[in-house]
């Protein structure tokens, strides 16, 4: 008898604990999932944490963050999971637009609102290029997007460079992973806004450093041995620019004893590291891709869509790409000091 009593007590208390949970699942907060391209990628990690912060602002949004670990197979798995778990709203940061496009479409087909962010997934990612820019540059049917415009971002540095880079200059170019939308678009912007305008400039070397610090460093270390002075480092992100700059930090041909560089360097992203290098005078300029802003925008659209105020396919917005340079870098550094990435005492 005693045992039976004990057992029933356990069952009862278990039921009491579980009851509110099941009730919540039925009518509680909206379940939103953010699928990041990787957790080991500086920007993706930053975006993930900003997403979490932004979601806290909304009581009725419960955000789950997962990561594709920069692997298309893992991305596919995570995207399929989103359908299985019946989320109310899915935000996707693709690793490889074309590879993820069918899975993103599957989510949309399953009737779940899906928004692609940094980068946008286009119709051309699904169907292939048609050659008609209007069709190719359209956001994929049945999805929305919140993004930073890669062309606008890269144009910031490219337009400055037109004025700054000396005549007949020799430059090197560091590219992001091949097939990555932002990597390719940023590179195209450099063609449009810089190389097409300045045909006196020679590209000494150009190679893929896959957004990575150490790969860019190894390339730059060797390229400077080539004998011709490199007048400008043109990098598709700040990470690679930083690696390239580290490669010449102790090279007096590039940085004089007093710390003045004999080269220009352009990045994109406006990371903490980029800001520190601008402060040091080694990075000329970068454009901020503000993860905080992208995240905030994403969440505000999510709230509207979930409350039925707008249709998710209407979500189509781009954040600004403000320029960071020696004149305004301090205010951006303050942002990073505030979030702990830069410590004031070490400045």
């Amino acid at each position, binding site marked *: 008898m005693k045992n039976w009593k004990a057992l029933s007590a356990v069952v009862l208390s278990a039921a009491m604990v579980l009851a509110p949970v099941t009730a919540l699942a039925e009518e509680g907060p909206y379940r939103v999932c953010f699928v990041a391209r990787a957790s080991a990628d*500086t920007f993706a990690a930053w975006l993930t944490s900003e997403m979490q912060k932004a979601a806290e602002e909304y009581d009725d949004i419960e955000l789950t963050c997962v990561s594709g670990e920069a692997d298309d197979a893992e991305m596919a798995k995570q995207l399929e999971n989103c359908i299985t778990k019946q989320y109310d709203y899915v935000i996707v940061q693709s690793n490889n637009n074309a590879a993820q496009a069918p899975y993103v479409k599957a989510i949309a087909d399953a009737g779940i609102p899906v928004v692609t962010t940094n980068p946008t997934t286009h119709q051309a990612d699904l169907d292939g290029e048609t050659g008609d820019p209007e069709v190719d540059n359209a956001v994929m049917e049945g999805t929305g997007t919140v993004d930073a415009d890669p062309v606008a971002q890269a144009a910031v540095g490219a337009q400055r460079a037109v004025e700054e880079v000396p005549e007949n200059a020799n430059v090197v170019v560091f590219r992001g992973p091949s097939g990555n939308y932002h990597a390719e678009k940023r590179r195209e912007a450099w063609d449009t806004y810089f190389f097409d305008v300045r045909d006196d400039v020679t590209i000494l070397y150009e190679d893929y450093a896959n957004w990575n610090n150490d790969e860019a460093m190894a390339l730059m*270390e060797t*390229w400077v041995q080539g004998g011709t002075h490199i007048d400008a480092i043109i990098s598709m992100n700040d990470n690679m620019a930083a690696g390239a700059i580290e490669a010449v930090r102790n090279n007096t041909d590039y940085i004089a004893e007093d710390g003045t560089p004999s080269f220009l360097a352009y990045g994109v992203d406006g990371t*903490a590291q980029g800001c520190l290098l601008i402060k040091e005078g080694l990075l000329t300029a970068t454009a901020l891709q503000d993860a905080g802003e992208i995240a905030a925008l994403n969440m505000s659209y999510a709230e509207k869509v979930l409350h039925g105020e707008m249709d998710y396919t209407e979500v189509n917005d781009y954040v600004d790409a403000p320029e960071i340079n020696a004149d305004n870098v301090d205010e951006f550094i303050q942002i990073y000091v505030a979030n702990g990435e830069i410590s004031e005492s*070490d400045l």
Partner: protein
Amino acid sequence: MKSSKASTYLQRFSIYIVLIAMFVACSLLSPYFLSANNLMNVARQLCVGILLAYAEMILIVSGFLDLSIGSVLALAGVLSVSTFKSTHSMLLALVVAFAVGVACNMINAVFVAQFDVPAFIATLGMQQVARGIALYYTGGANILQLGKYVKLGQGMVGKVPVPVIIVLCITVVVWYLFNHTRYGRNLYAIGGNRKAAEASGIDTRKNIFISYAIVGVLAGLAGAIFMARNNSGIPNGAVGYEMTGLTAAIVGGTSFSGGVGTVMGTVAGAFIIGFLENIMNLIGVNSYIQSIIEGAIIVLAVAFDIRSKNRKTTKQIMAVKDEKK
């Protein structure tokens, strides 16, 4: 008779011949290759890779391997960097790097030695665990503003980079271990025939633990140098570096079936790969093409090495018969 002696030498030093051929070819391909700056540059770039190659060689010679070394390097590196940032003590930062490297590898060793888990599996698990901890600890963001820590990777003593000096010292130590200690002999015996080594009174488990401890120290040191060179604590750095280490060791004549391998061979292997990457970057070969050429040349170099060694063995068998006459 003289020519056959010469050919024996040729076979014995085949990997060095590949290295020299490579060197000559490189100097013809680019006028900048031979400059002192460039050679020093190659040496500096190879530092981290050579440390990992020693680690892998120690393990492969005794019949094991370590797939976790790239991740452990990153974990040891970021923890070391953040120790430096909070204490400003280089000594403490290095102690942390070594301690983390050794701790991870002691776990590897427990599974490999005590539970007989294949090293491939045990260290594959550690690869994920260590990387995960590194990312969790940093939240995926790079640690910046390293201050004096960068000296470890970027500093110079006279005209020689600090990491090159460190690696030279380590090379002497590892060479000594292999050639002048009982531990070195034990490794060759365990890798050559573990059962025979045990039957000859060698404590294989103890030696496995020592090996992984040494590998841990090398991984920690490599982590510290890696972060210092990049002037940031990069939790997602050094992905796939275990392959860099393995490749250098194997190209340098370390046999995957165990029991065979030399420190100098491994150095040669590392330089073959280093020269190859350097010359391709110097003459501006696209990195995708580089990957194709590198893969092909590595296989060819190893094939050449194996072929000449095989011939040597046949010769020795014949020599025994000869003497019997």
